[in-house]
């Protein structure tokens, strides 16, 4: 059953010492080959077809097919004159997620090459890396890499003599979780409040400054150069199950070896947990886990043999999200964990729509009461009602609040007895580190 990694793709330039790949070492390892290939004869449509055929899906959490997303951008005569934009979403703030940071810090050129190719495909002439402000190392290395690219003629006017022009800028975020939502990111980039926009219109037709815009996650863009270089079939063959390519998976919580690894799409959860994360810490047992960051539903032991791909995790009632798991062990209070997440999400609400702005702090307050022993029986009904009220996409303006309710709704399903125990005992049963 064990699937070992057959090929390192995204992390090919990342060694255990985490020394960043500079222009020389990146090129020495086949970097910018895809760029040369495209600029010497591939049309934007050729590139789009390859990406479509590769079945690459967005790595930011929603898993939307990248090629399809790009295909919505109006091209040629169908596009009114003006700029088009490619934006890299590097505002990595999902709780428990630290995969983009590794990719940007250790291999900035991989992202940049992917971005140039993506921008070329949609014929964007401006591109931004919207990066989390705290990622100081990544910012510095990306800036350096950009400077090197301009020097090499990989960016700027008439890239490699192709006649194609592209500007690229690093834009540091002022730091809100909601900036990870693509339309909120666009507003932030315009200097406005980072409130998500209503869709339609989608950014592909009316995005940054009202112009066609593609926003892709760092990891998604890091795949592009490899797909262009080696082809769609190769990329598809990397995945084990239905989904193509490799994926950055991670684990945090009480495991022996928390970390982040590149593994084939569809690697079973158990393999990630036991082989790479080293299993549970001594004396602790697995109680549940959030498969793809803080805004995904809990899964439990029975789900360990599921492959990590969009479909399998989805049918188990959760989402693959960012692919970075948060592990809950038997000595950590699940109510406390959910409360901790709710505190984060309530604080990160942009304050635009009512259910999120008011509903999350309300839920947080109920959980605080329960966790601190002031909970009442009817509070559990309130929580169920809150899940119904806030938890559905469409009830709220964007996906933040429904995401925030995912750990709660699944905790109510799998850990109901813990909630009851809090209310019945009038205190948190885990205060001593062990349920009493």
């Amino acid at each position, binding site marked *: 059953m064990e699937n070992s990694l057959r090929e390192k793709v995204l992390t090919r330039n990342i060694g255990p010492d985490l020394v960043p790949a500079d222009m020389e070492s990146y090129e020495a390892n086949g970097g910018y080959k895809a760029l040369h290939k495209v600029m010497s004869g591939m049309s934007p449509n050729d590139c789009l077809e390859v990406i479509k055929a590769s079945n690459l899906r967005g790595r930011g959490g929603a898993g939307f097919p990248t090629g399809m997303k790009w295909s919505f951008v109006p091209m040629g005569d169908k596009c009114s004159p003006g700029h088009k934009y490619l934006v890299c979403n590097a505002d990595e703030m999902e709780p428990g997620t630290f995969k983009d940071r590794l990719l940007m810090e250790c291999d900035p050129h991989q992202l940049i090459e992917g971005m140039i190719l993506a921008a070329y495909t949609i014929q964007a002439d401006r591109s931004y890396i919207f990066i989390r402000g705290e990622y100081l190392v990544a910012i510095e290395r990306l800036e350096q890499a950009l400077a090197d690219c301009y020097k090499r003629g990989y960016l700027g006017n008439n890239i490699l003599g192709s006649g194609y022009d592209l500007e690229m800028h690093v834009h540091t975020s002022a730091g*809100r979780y909601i900036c990870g939502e693509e339309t909120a990111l666009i507003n932030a980039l315009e200097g406005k*409040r980072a409130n998500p*926009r*209503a869709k*339609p*219109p989608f950014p592909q*037709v*009316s995005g940054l*400054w*009202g112009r066609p815009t593609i926003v892709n996650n760092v990891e998604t863009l890091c795949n592009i150069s490899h797909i262009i270089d080696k082809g769609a079939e190769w990329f598809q063959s990397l995945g084990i199950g239905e989904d193509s390519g490799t994926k950055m998976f991670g684990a945090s919580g009480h495991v022996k070896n928390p970390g982040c690894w590149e593994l084939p799409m569809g690697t079973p959860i158990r393999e990630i947990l036991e082989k790479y994360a080293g299993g549970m810490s001594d004396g602790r047992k697995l109680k549940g886990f959030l498969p793809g960051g803080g805004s995904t539903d809990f899964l439990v032991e029975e789900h360990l043999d599921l492959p990590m791909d969009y479909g399998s995790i989805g049918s188990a009632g959760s989402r693959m999200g960012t692919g970075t798991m948060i592990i809950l062990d038997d000595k950590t209070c699940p109510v406390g964990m959910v409360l901790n997440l709710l505190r984060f999400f*309530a*604080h*990160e*609400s*942009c*304050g*635009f*729509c*009512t*259910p999120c*702005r*008011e*509903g*999350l*702090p*309300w839920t947080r*307050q109920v959980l*605080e*009461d329960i966790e601190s022993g002031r909970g009442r029986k*009817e509070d559990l009904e*309130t929580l169920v*009602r809150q899940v119904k*009220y806030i938890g*559905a996409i*469409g*009830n*709220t*303006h964007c996906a933040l609040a429904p995401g925030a309710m995912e750990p709660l709704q699944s905790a109510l399903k799998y850990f109901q007895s813990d909630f009851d125990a809090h209310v019945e005992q009038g205190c948190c049963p885990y205060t001593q580190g062990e349920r009493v």
Partner: protein
Amino acid sequence: MPTIYIDGQAYEVEEGKNLLEACLNLGLDLPYFCWHPSMGSIGSCRQCAMVQYQNEEDTRGRIVMGCMTPVTDGARLSLKGDTASEFRASVIESLMLNHPHDCPVCAEGGECHLQDMTVKVGHRDRHYRGLKNTHRNQYLGPLINHEMNRCISCYRCVRFYRDYAGGTDLAALASHDHVYFGRHQDGVLQSEFAGNLVEVCPTGVFTDKPLVNDYSRKWDLQSAPSICVGCAVGCNTSPGERYGRLKRIQNRYNQQVNGYFLCDRGRFGADFVNSESRLNFAGVRQDDGSYQAIKADDALSQVASLCQKGAVAGIGSPRASVEANYLLRRLVGDSHFCSGMSDVEHALVQQVAEALSTTRAVSPSLHQIESADAVLILGEDVSNTAPRLALALRQSARNKARQMAEDMRLEPWMDAAIRNLAQNQYSPVFIAGVHESRLEDIAAASVSLAPDDIARLGFAVAAEISGSHLPGLGHLSTLVGTIASALKAAKKPLIVSGTSLMNSAVIESAVAVVEALLSEEKNTLLSLSVPECNSMGVTLLDGGKGLGFNVLAESAAQGDIDTLIVLENDLYRRAPTETVDQLLGNIKQLVVLDSLDNATLSASYLALPAATFAESEGTFVSSEGRAQRYYPVFVAEDDRLASWQWLSELGQVLGLSGFDQLAHFDQVEQTCADEIPALSGITAAAPDHLFRNRGLKIPRQPARYSGRTAVRANVSVHEPKQPVDNESPLSFSMEGLGVGQPSSLMSYSWSPGWNSNQSIQKFQNEAGGEIKGGSSGIRLISPGEGAKIESLSVPDAFHPSNTDLLLVPVYRVFGSDELSRQAPAIAELSGDAQLVVRSENVNKLQVADGDGVVVVVDGSEVVLEVLVDDSIAEGCVGFTMGMPGTESLVIGIGSMVSLRRAENWQPRKPQLIATDNPNAPSPDTRGQRGVPYV
């Protein structure tokens, strides 16, 4: 028309609407907060949730927001089902987490949309046990009260203030459940439309400060349909009265004119009605110079005997009703009547009236202005002279965005999406003024020029459109080309100009531009502003036949006038003090009818107390040419009478022929309409006094008007008989129907379950549409056959002089208007008169902002405070028109003046508005009429 199914019932609805609009138009009560008919949808409050089903089999459905979902043929929806109802109740419960339980002490209570919606969704039990968030309130100036704790974060305030009205100093600050709507620091809100926050806010965050300080509940306010007297736009208002005091002005919806919004001059400027300097009784001057109050009958017989003694002349007024002016004219005779404007102003308004009735261009309503797709403003600083027009122009600039949205197939109500799409792209707006205006942010190009050069620019554009060329434009020729081609490319170009620069060539040039455009068979609009609420009415009445002010002064000098009757007019605002003094010295007796004390009234022999607009009935004609009726909101106290009534009674006492048939308002109006062809339409402005709504008069008081007996319980515990209104179809009572009447007779809007101003949708054909039965008012001026333009009227180019400066008027929304200055809240904002000078001109004099400068005009000297403004046209100096201390400068407009530094000038103490100094006195105590806020 698409068919939609709501709770199983099929409805035909209009295409292109959203579900919320469709529901409201069907009369279904779907609660909402953030959506506004004039501002569209953003989907923030989530209150208007419905359940939409995929098809007939779908039983689960999904929640959609009514305001964000377009109607689609065959859509299956649930409004009353449990899922939708429970969700909407949860939204209200969420909004109530932090909303204080202060309805009994909240100024919004009783007309609060949040109260209405809370009752409507049936939310009752509170599940939240946490603490409420609290905020610090800000001092926002003398007009608006701020109580942030009540905020439900619907974002309407900032969307109106910033997106709709172009303000910059109110914003959404902070995030999550700490979102704060306020300024970056305490201080006066800078937008002249800030007062609309009171009506836009669905609850009591922004409330009317003068009302809060002198408070009455909505249900205790007696109201009547009224027209704003602040400028010539003619916005419809609904003033509210209690205990004989005018408590507030609220917007009265008229789709064609003001829509949902007023400017602050109009909303807060009417407080002059409550002024201490109101005249209550007739008075006659004693030998010692003091006034002795006399009985009304005695006053009338005294005036009558004065009139019988010798020659009588009358001076009318552009701020008095058509009817009062008509009666005065009839009383003294055509040849002894003067419109009451200065000669220059009278000629200009006459020119405007003629231009509008000869040109083929349409004189547009504000609603039509909003549909213009290219605008050229020639000389008129509309933000200060006709503010509501400026707000309409702001919307017309957005037609580019609407077009872009249409091209992308975005629905016109998708406000946020359209703004994101268009960003700061606007339909072309070109502005030529004597200084920068507050429409600068939407202008494709703007230029500051001397008035004659503005006219030259206009003529040059006209020439360019016609394919010829006006020489000698220098650096402006590129701009002329740009303007001409933008206007030619537009489907509905609009030219805006007016009388404010006192320059007839400017108006002429505006007419020249529309005539040039009309030769291309275009749908062209020409909006010409005039100075006062009835400038147009009195001009149409006069028809160019009356005496000019100077002619009148001359005949007085020859001893041809014994008695002069002045109707609601302070002559000292019309002409230099010496001229007026001379005129008054040359007559024997001055009789003045006015409501407020002023210099002319103080010079009178006999004064008659006139009712204000709030206590009388009358007709005003707006600059558009729209005749509109206003009605008494309350019965005038003491011996105050409407001017038309004083004059009618005087005519009867004098036994003048026909005056026995002029005892009632409708008779006066009918006779006026019969006699003056230009005013023949005024009787159609509103129904006559016999109109009944299902057999009943229309109530001025809402159904819940309370304490009618308690008001005067200290006098008598018996309920007094309500005053009877024999002149109009309105009654001073709560009895009668408040629905189904024509829009010109809507005292207030209220509908069961809709206590706030949002109830207006129950009276409209469709949300944001016309009031059922049509918008009120009647247009008296219709386009003509084409105006003749004198090619010789192109003035010479202005050449700045090295020594002297050209004197031009500049206008202040707060301060330039005579009556609104008397409202304490507006007075606080209006400040003192100023001289607006370019820095190069003050540098020579070694003065700076706040220093004093002497202006020498025509031999007389005026000392004014300096405001340095480099946006004023080169070689020009401006003075704040209409503000005390500038009267003698009016005659110098258009002439060259010299400046010199004023000696012994005491600079004004700067007003403290906000400070970081913790020891400074709290600004919260300001603007409270001397009463500290406790």
